[in-house]
Each structure stands twice: as C-alpha cells, then as structure tokens.
C-alpha cells in the first residue's frame, strides 16, 4: 500500500469480528490514518498488494460510495467543512443513499431527534452548516451522530480523541459506548491510551512502521502507556528476524 509512490503500510494483517471493539495504537507516522483512508477507498491511496474483506466481499474492487453502502463507516480525524449544507439535510441524503425507498421526512426527523437526544445534543445543531465553524469537540460529536444515524456494520474511528478536552472526550466515548453492540464492529485508531479508559477495547493492536507488531488484550495499552512505543521497536526487529 503506497501514497504517491512511497510505501506506507507494509504487510499488515488485522481482523475485527462483528460485535468487537479493537484498538489500533501507534505513534505519529506509523500509518494509522493511512490505514483508515485506505479502508474507506480514498483515491490518493494505492493498494499495491493484499485484500480487504468486509462482509464476505473484497472491497478493494469497490469505490468509496459502494463501501459506505455496504456498511463501512469512517469517523474522520479532520472532517471536511461543507458550507451551506445543513447537518439534517446532508444526513437525510445519506440515510436515503443506503435505502431502496426514501425515508419520510417525519420518520427521518424522529430518527435524528432520537439520536441527538441519546448523544445529549441540542436539536439546533441539526440546522447548522456541516462542520462549518464547529469546534473540535463539535466536529467529533457530529461524526458520532452520523455513526448513530447511519448504523453501519463496521466503524473506524480515526483519532477521534485528538483535540478534545476531557469533557468532550467523555461525551464522545459515551456515545460510542451506547452504540456498541453485537451488530457493530469498531476499530478505534488512537495515539494515546487515554481514550481507551473510556472506550474499553476487546483487543489492542500496535502499529509501528506500517506493521502490526503486537496484539493483545486491553493490558497492551497500559504497557504502552508505561513504557512508550520505543520499547516495542526492538520487538519489531525481533519478529522480523524470526
């Protein structure tokens, strides 16, 4: 997998079963966001070898739209601003995009209000322009709102904790925890262990230099917190030699 000819991810194997929450941790430049964008099908990222299987399909053959309609969701680290487009009208289009028949305006309105209530969001939020002028916390909460409304099968949360103060972090984590369930798989991508205090993962993977060097239970995150990524560099070398 490479960007503009520079290889970023080099042989990475990862499986997130339905109903589980996995965390992917790694330092800056380890390839975390690249992985997230690649999975969602960003046109700038080229996969040179490998397969990505989702719900029994190799999704590398699908474009971003088709992946989304299959049930893949990416909560962006930096969500794009779309001036002039209201959160509610955008979400209604997105809901309709994955349905055969259009949802009625009333039914959509109720759905949106229910989800906003669950996430403790002011209903006025739905009338704002998508991400325009949102604070960091508002942007992330808006991503979680979309996750709640669109009900995907697999959600990738890309650095959802970045730029959040502790209160915003807690609100966002609460939202994710409420959405956890047997039909949703979650991959939480993060640099810091902090978020994992609130969204407790079933499995933690550590990404270094484009490879997963360690997988284990939630204790792996605590080890990292205590010892830093440096301690795993050696392990990476060892496993390569083995």
């Amino acid at each position, binding site marked *: 997998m490479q960007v503009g000819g520079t290889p970023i991810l080099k042989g990475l194997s990862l499986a997130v079963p339905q109903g589980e929450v996995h965390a992917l941790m790694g330092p800056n430049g380890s390839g975390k966001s690249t992985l997230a964008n690649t999975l*969602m*099908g*960003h*046109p*700038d990222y080229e996969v040179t070898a490998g397969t990505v299987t989702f719900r029994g399909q190799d999704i590398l053959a699908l*474009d*971003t*739209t088709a*992946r*989304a*309609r299959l049930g893949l*969701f*990416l909560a*962006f680290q*930096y*969500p*794009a*601003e*779309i*001036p*002039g*487009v209201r959160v509610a009208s*955008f979400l209604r*289009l*997105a809901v309709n*995009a*994955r349905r055969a028949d259009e949802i009625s305006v009333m039914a959509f309105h109720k759905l949106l209000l229910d989800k906003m209530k669950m996430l403790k969001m002011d209903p006025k939020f739905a009338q704002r*322009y*998508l991400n325009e002028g949102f604070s960091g916390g508002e942007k992330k909460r808006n991503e979680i709102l*979309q996750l709640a409304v*669109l009900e995907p099968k697999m959600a990738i949360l890309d650095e959802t904790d970045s730029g959040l103060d502790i209160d915003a972090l807690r609100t966002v984590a609460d939202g994710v925890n409420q959405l956890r369930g047997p039909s949703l798989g979650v991959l939480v991508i993060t640099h810091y262990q902090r978020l994992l205090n609130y969204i407790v993962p079933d499995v933690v993977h550590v990404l270094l230099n484009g490879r997963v060097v360690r997988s284990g239970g939630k204790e792996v995150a605590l080890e990292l917190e205590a010892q830093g990524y440096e301690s795993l560099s050696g392990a990476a070398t060892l496993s390569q030699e083995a």
Partner: protein
Amino acid sequence: MAVKSTDFGLDTYKFGFHDDGKPVYKSPKGLSRQVVEEISSQKDEPDWIRQFRLDSLRLFEKKAVPAWGADLSTIDFGNIHYYVRPQDRQARSWDDVPKDIKATFDKLGIPESERKFLAGVGAQYDSEVVYHSLREDLAKQGVIFLDMDSGLREHPEIVREYFGTVIPNGDNKFAALNSAVWSGGSFVYVPAGVKVEIPLQAYFRINAENMGQFERTLIVVEPGAYVHYVEGCTAPIYATSSLHSAVVEIIVKEGARCRYTTIQNWSTDVYNLVTKRAVAYRDATMEWIDGNLGSKVTMKYPSVYLMEPGAHGEVLSIACAGKGQHQDAGAKMVHAAPHTSSLITSKSISRGGGRAGYRGYVQVLPDAVGCKSNVQCDALLMDEESRSDTYPYMDIEESDVAIQHEATVSKIGEQQLFYLMSRGLTQPQATALVVSGFIEPIVKELPMEYAVEMNRLIELQMEGSIG
C-alpha cells in the same frame, strides 16, 4: 388570499409538444428606419415613443459594441428578426388565448405549487405579451401590473414621466437597441403605502429562430410601498444564435422597497445582454436577485443609484457557466448621497471549461460621507479547464466611508467529495451537494418554488458534467 389555479384555466389544458406558433406580423431580418417605423405603427404608438425609437436607432448605429467583457463579435445584427407579433389583439381572458400559445406555457412547466401563488401573469410569447391577468384585490389597491404596451396605452402620463429616465437610450449600444425595437415587458406601478404581498411573476420565452427578444420593464414604487417582481426565463434550443437584450428601469421612492428576482435559463445559443438599473431615494431599499444559468454569453450588471441619504442597494447573484458558456455577471452601486449603503454578494460556478466571473463597480461620489459598501465574491471551480475572473472596480472619491471587498476562489475539494461519498453519496450527488451549499446564501432568498427549481437545475448539470 388563496387563488385557485382554475381561475386562470392553467390546469385545464394539456397539449402536445409541438407548437406551430404562426405570428401575424414578423419584421424582415435586420434593422432599419423602416423596421422601427413599422413596429411603432403596428403598435399604434404616440408620436413621442415613435420619435424615441428613431432617436435610439441613431444612437445604436453610432455606438460601438463593447470591447470589454465577453466576446460579442459573432453577433450578426443583420440576421435577426426584431419584431414578431403572434396575434392581432391582446387576449382579454384566458379563453381568448390561442391554443398553441397555451401549449407553450404548458411546456414551460409552471409547477402546480407556483400556480397558487400567481397573482397576475404577464407571459411574453414571441415579442409580445399575449396574456395578462391581474388579481382583483391588487387592482383595488391601485396596483398596476400590465405588459409595457398596454401600460403605455392605458397610463401614458405615468409611463411618459419615467420611461427612459433611469436608463437613457444612449446609455450603451444594447440599451439603444432595446429602446429602438422594444416590445412587451412589464409595467408595474405600486401606489404609496401599498405592500404587494404576493410576488408578481412573469414568464419569458424566445420562440422563433433568429428572433430577438427586446422586452422593456418599468417599475415605479411610490413612497412606503413594497413589491417583489419575479422574472423566470426558459428558452428552447436552436442551432443559431439568438439575442436577448432587455432594459429594466426601477424607481424606488422614499421609504419604499423593491425586490427584483430573475432566474435566467436561456438555451446555450442565446446572447443575453441586459441593462438593469434602479434609483433609490431616501431610506429606500432596492434588491436585485439574479441567477444566471443558461445562455451562451451573459453580460449583466444590475445597478442601484443611491440618490438620497438612507438608501440601500443589494445585489445577490449566481452565475453558472458550463461548456461553451461565458457568464460575465456583476453589479454596480453608485453612492450619490451621504449615509447610503450597499451589499454585493456574488457566487460563480465554472465547470466543463466554462467561464464565469464577477465584474463590479462601486462608486462613492465626493461628499457622500458615511457610506458603507460590502462586496463579497466567491468563485467555485469544478475542474482544471474552467475559468473564473474577478474585476472589482472601485472609484471612491470620499475618504469618510467604509468599503469592504473580499474575493475567494475555491476548487471543489477532493476531501469534501471523499467525506460525502464515505457516507454513501455518489460522486454526482456529492458534487451537487457542495455546489448547492455554495449557492445557498442566495437560493434561500428565492421564492420556494424557484429555490427548488434552482437546486434541481444544479443537480441536473452536475449529473451531466461528471462521467
């Protein structure tokens, strides 16, 4: 008060698509003293108008085609019919309107929702208004809403007082041309203190090949009155160029307010060269809302002359240019008195190699202290081949003023599209959504039916522009 669509019989006629439109009189191609005389005599006009036409013809012949703006060198003035009259007499009621003309209206696809709002319909077919309906309560309020020819006939004293005073016939080559051969358009008069609650709407359409459209509109808003005039244009597509050259003059008196909304969707072979100007007096407000989607070339710069303190002028415009189109749109504000204010918001979209731009002129005359002007122009480029131009001229002859100008050019963002597609939207859907958001500040000012139509047009264009 609700108006049933049956009041106009609009919903009782369904015709086939073909419309043979047999005009009773069609001037020979080209422009001459004889043609102008003939138009005037066909209309049985008073002498002063006949003379005005002939003077205008001389001015037209003297004036050069503008060398700035869009390329107008391919207009063949000798190859245009300047006047076509579809029937001898103006229809008095809907029943009198010929069938084929009704079919033309049908094809315009006036939506059901809109029919309810129709207060009066002035529809221009070929070069003349053939049908006109004025709601009774408007008439009771003293509001006059007629086609320009009838206005001249029935209210000669008002027309003569204002006609050609805002835009003199020598203003520019195309204003001179219109002044010489004008036909149809609307005459609106709103007496002091009367607020017209429902927008007055008119529909225009070019019908005959190589036939010009030279309508002339005059709106007089007396002190404290309010009116919203809406003009929507559609035209069928022909292989050769057509010319649309209108003149719109508006007088907004003390404390009055006028809004003039245009959605222009000419076929892409039409030269759309329109002169629109308003004068606003003490504490008056003039608003131009101008959407330019179609035509081959548009040159249009709605203007407001702010004549007395407290006058306010606004132009909100959208220009959308696709393949082979050049939209040279803009605005002009003249601050001729102290404490006047103006606001210009311009949005242009260029796609498929099209060219859209903003050309603006803000002038503050000496001693016009305390004036405020704010110009915001944003351009959105959909691809590498398309082009956007911004020409913001300022001529400020007074120092005690607050003038702001801001211009942005953005290319439709890959990140924006990726974001929207990651939620399941297709690329054309995502593109249309970004574009509709871009023009939202202006679309939200349109009457609802027009806003819906505008968004639908943008959607269709985006579907066509993406492989």
